[in-house]
């Protein structure tokens, strides 16, 4: 589903964020990506979502060689990737419903279909009653769940999460993680960047550890 073949990324300021990364995430696999800040976690996720491009090597996502994807095609690659951010990245002048519907609206889905799918996604994250509220009226955990509903509403085969529990207390974090497990159980591939080692340890999933831009460890839970 995702594979890195000898990928390096050097930023314009000369900083080597990733060095010779070889890694594969299979279809339907769930893995954690960990390491200190600056280890290259975010850069790795950015290469997958084409926010950045690799300097060397090939990144394959969902059967596409990303170095062959033109800028015009980037949106279509991103539609197959559900992205979840630490700061949620919601539109604060739109309702919960409108936020979650956004990926479907962008794709040009039928509006009856949109209604059905948005409610299904909100039901999944337990926010069905709050679709008419603005994100600002919700708690941090609820906002993150809106972000998750938005990421899964168009049923992408891949979900990327960048520190999804960074701002949440342990109990809420566990809730979010259990949601991820549920998505994984229906066949979605997930790559979750996190430095919450105790949480990762309890989850017992494959863990990829980066240090200074290189792959330090790849295997069972830390």
């Amino acid at each position, binding site marked *: 589903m995702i594979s890195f073949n000898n990928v390096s990324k050097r930023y314009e300021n000369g900083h080597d964020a990733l060095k010779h990364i070889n890694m594969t995430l299979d279809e*339907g696999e769930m893995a954690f990506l960990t390491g200190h800040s600056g280890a290259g976690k975010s850069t790795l996720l950015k290469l997958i979502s084409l*926010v950045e491009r690799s300097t060397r090597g090939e990144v394959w996502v969902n059967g596409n060689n990303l170095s062959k994807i033109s800028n015009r095609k980037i949106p279509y690659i991103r539609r197959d990737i559900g992205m979840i951010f630490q700061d949620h990245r919601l539109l604060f002048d739109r309702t919960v419903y409108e936020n979650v519907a956004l990926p479907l609206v962008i794709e040009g889905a039928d509006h009856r279909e949109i209604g059905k799918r948005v409610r299904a996604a909100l039901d999944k994250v337990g926010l069905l009653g709050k679709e008419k509220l603005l994100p600002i009226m919700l708690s941090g955990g609820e906002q993150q769940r809106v972000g998750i509903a938005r990421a899964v509403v168009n049923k992408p085969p891949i979900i990327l999460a960048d520190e999804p529990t960074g701002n949440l207390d342990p109990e809420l974090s566990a809730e979010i993680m259990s949601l991820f497990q549920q998505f994984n159980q229906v066949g979605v591939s997930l790559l979750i960047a996190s430095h919450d080692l105790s949480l990762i340890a309890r989850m017992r999933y494959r863990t990829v550890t980066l240090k200074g831009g290189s792959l330090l460890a790849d295997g069972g839970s830390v």
Partner: protein
Amino acid sequence: MSQQQPEKRGATTQKTGLISRFKMFLHLHRLEVRNSYVGLIKTPIATLMTIAVLGIAIALPAGLHLMLKNASTVSADWDGASRFSLYLNDSVSKTDAEDLVIRLMKRLDVEEAVLIDKQQALDEFQALSGLGDALYQLDENPLPQVVEIIPTEQFSLPEASEAMLGTFKLMPEVAVAKLDMQWVKRLYYLLQVVDRFIYALASMLGLAVLLIVGNTIRLAILNRRDEIEIIKLIGATDAFIRRPFLYTGLWFGIGGGFFALMIISGSLYWLSDPINQLAIQYNSGYALLGLNMTEVFQLMAFSALLGLSGSWVSVSRHLKQINPSY
């Protein structure tokens, strides 16, 4: 670990039918038309000010065009009244000249014929030339007798006039026959100059409209920078992001055009009374011309186009500079 093979899934495999896509496309556009409109209404003062500036910029050339149109109508009225001046031979006596006038008056193509005798011509020349008393030093009056002729309406057209001029030239009493078109030509060329001037002004103000809309859209884009980044991350195409801004530009153009129409009709209303008074003084049935339906349509279409292109240029430029990050 859940490593079971799931069925192939993902957005790429979920194709929607062509008709429902088209319906959605229309629905989206309707939504954007409404959203961009609502967005403008939310900041009424700023929107109104922008529209007022656009309206003034559009109204200036449109108003000048209207002035030109009115001037052309007036000159067209005068155009019909071309005059002939027949300069008579020195050998023709005053009585012969008066006979000639009577004969001319009987012609069907002559509306009026007036004799200006030597003395009248001299008085007129003295008054207008500024030579004054110097003329009295002359032994005799060097000016010829002149018959001024105004043709009837159907003979005022250029071709008929030329034909009449030919027959006048053949008359034995006539030394020189002239068709007084000079000033009409001058006015025509003057109007041409004004016309060009209006085009130049219209182009400059059109450019101003483009820049104003462009700048307003630029600010709108910067205001929504976060939102643009987010929807880019979710997979929005540039076309999708561009759409609301294009509609906003279109609304600005339409609003500006409408404002310009209001300025023009207001000015016309304000001017109509004194102009009517003036027309009465000249015994003329002249009435001020407004914009006709075609012109109103052209003005609105042109304004809308300017608004749209202004925002297009701005969006294309600034959208490239916004790249998402997290």
